[in-house]
């Protein structure tokens, strides 16, 4: 039982949580207000170790709740600091009131999220109900497939957040346990390269600049509220452009290229397409390879960006497919999956010839999704299952 060796090394075995913590260490933010919650805790635990070991000099503020963590983050960001934090599930729920304010006050805070189901019943395992709950808060939302992407997207996310055309929080999602606690090979970048890539942060109107006093976060009446919201719309629109620009810079610095808004895996000639976020997209690639060997033309579309949602580009990538199945790892009770609704709208808006569109809910509360289960979706599409009802994958009924 011997293995042939073929790949060059220079990889470090770390978990997704540790990968995110390394990105934070290299970015070296000024302030990191934190409150622990499973499965995010190893991110801040590892980061706190780095600070204690003197490998970066961020000020960690241990607060009494996530509501306070985000409040401290907004305060520090307004003061002019570069700020990062991390959370999961109920923690994000408790934070959410202030996340809306962080976005509206244009605080470029990077939030690492270990995706986890929302209570109740209480469950510590992965699904995307936490980040989907926060999708309308005004943050950029990035989803990572594996530990490597979790690391890279933290670094890209920092530049994205702080670009003056954007200036909103960036949430970087990695799947709880599946990625946060799974050890994988990760290519870490040199500290200096990351430092140079993210650069120095200079706040536009720091409160601590007492020579130029400003008022921040005041009451806004009907005469201006609407205009301020419109500016947030523009910020998220600008994030598309900045994301594409950063890909070039990141590729030059790291040799790793994130091309476009999503990864298209064997998609261009596919008859059937799957749309999946995060770690399950990796499992789907394995299934796609198996089905391709049997002659089934199936491909994958894995969005990195969920907010802003790349509707036009996704619709174009799905044009001409016989059928498309959108797999959502979150529910919107009384409606359909959040990503399905986006893609349905995108296809309706941009395509004349529409593929048959299916929606599957999968993986809630950490329900495992192996390749065979994903293959059953392709079989369903081939047998022209009813697309007008919501389907559930791996559910006992």
């Amino acid at each position, binding site marked *: *039982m*011997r*293995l*042939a*060796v*073929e*790949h*060059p*090394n220079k*990889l470090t*075995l770390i978990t997704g949580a540790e990968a995110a913590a390394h990105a934070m260490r290299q970015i070296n933010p000024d302030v990191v207000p934190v409150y622990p919650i499973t499965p995010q805790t190893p991110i801040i635990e590892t980061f706190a170790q780095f600070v204690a070991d003197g490998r970066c000099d961020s000020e960690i503020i241990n607060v009494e709740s996530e509501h306070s963590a985000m409040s401290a983050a907004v305060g520090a960001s307004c003061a002019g600091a570069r700020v990062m934090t991390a959370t999961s599930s109920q923690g994000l729920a408790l934070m959410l009131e202030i996340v809306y304010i962080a976005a509206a006050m244009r605080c470029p805070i990077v939030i690492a999220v270990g995706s986890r189901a929302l209570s109740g019943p209480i469950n*510590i*395992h992965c699904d995307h109900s936490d980040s989907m709950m926060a999708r309308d808060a005004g943050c950029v939302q990035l989803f990572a*497939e*594996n530990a490597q992407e979790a690391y890279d997207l933290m670094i890209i996310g920092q530049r994205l957040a702080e670009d003056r055309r954007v200036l909103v929080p960036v949430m970087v999602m990695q*799947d709880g*346990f*599946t*990625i946060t*606690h*799974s*050890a*994988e*090979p990760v290519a870490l970048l040199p500290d200096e390269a990351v430092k140079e890539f993210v650069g120095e942060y200079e706040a536009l109107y720091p409160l601590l600049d007492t020579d130029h006093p400003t008022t921040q976060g005041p009451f806004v009446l009907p005469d201006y509220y609407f205009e301020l919201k419109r500016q947030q719309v523009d910020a998220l629109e600008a994030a598309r452009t900045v994301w594409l620009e950063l890909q070039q810079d990141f590729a030059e610095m790291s040799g790793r290229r994130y091309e476009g808004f999503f990864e298209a895996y064997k998609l261009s000639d596919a008859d059937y397409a799957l749309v999946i976020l995060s*770690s*399950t997209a*990796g*499992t789907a*690639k*394995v299934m796609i390879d198996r089905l391709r060997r049997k002659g089934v033309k199936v491909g994958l579309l894995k969005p990195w960006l969920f907010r802003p949602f790349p509707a036009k580009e996704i619709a174009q990538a799905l044009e001409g497919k016989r059928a498309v199945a959108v797999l959502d790892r979150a529910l919107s009770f009384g409606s359909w999956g959040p990503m399905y609704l986006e893609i349905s709208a995108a296809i309706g808006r941009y395509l004349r010839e529409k593929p048959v569109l299916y929606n599957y809910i999968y993986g809630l509360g950490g329900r*495992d*999704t*192996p*390749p065979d289960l994903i293959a059953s979706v392709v079989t369903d599409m081939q047998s022209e299952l009813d697309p007008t009802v919501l389907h559930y994958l791996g559910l006992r009924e």
Partner: protein
Amino acid sequence: MIEIRWHGRGGQGAKTVSQILAGAALRRGHYVQAFPEYGPERSGAPVKAFTRLNTKEIRLHCSVYEPDIVVVLDPTLLHAKEVRVTEGLKRQGVLLVNTPHSPEEIRQQTGFMGKIITLDAEALARSVGARFSNVVMLGALARLLGDISLEDVEREFAQTFGEKALATNVAALRAGFSALEAPL
């Protein structure tokens, strides 16, 4: 791809050895993945951990259903109600058990018809002054896999264990490695 499932009890270091093996294999140039199965974390409760080794990038992010190798760190798990250690184990796979009993006895107990290898890792651990048998079992598995260098495992130890525990664990590793005759 080789998929390994580790069975232990909370606190016996199943997760630790699953990662150390992956780290050592990565040093040899393999693609790897190591992850535990999380439930409510209780000391003494049955736990599982997994290691995947491959020649290509591992994209799977789901559990292991049909392992090639099962390593049982705690012999009491063989008759535990809540866990069946041979579940899904490939017929041509290997069951590696920490027990003073013979492979024939384990076959009768588990009904597994494939290759069974036993070693008294607990006694070996005691003989070198180690508290747990997980590292002895890791040594035995390294022997079985063949293409794992003990020096690489020891480099991984240096990242995991403090100076005091290092020498004991190196001794435990080598005791497990020497207990088996040859790679598969």
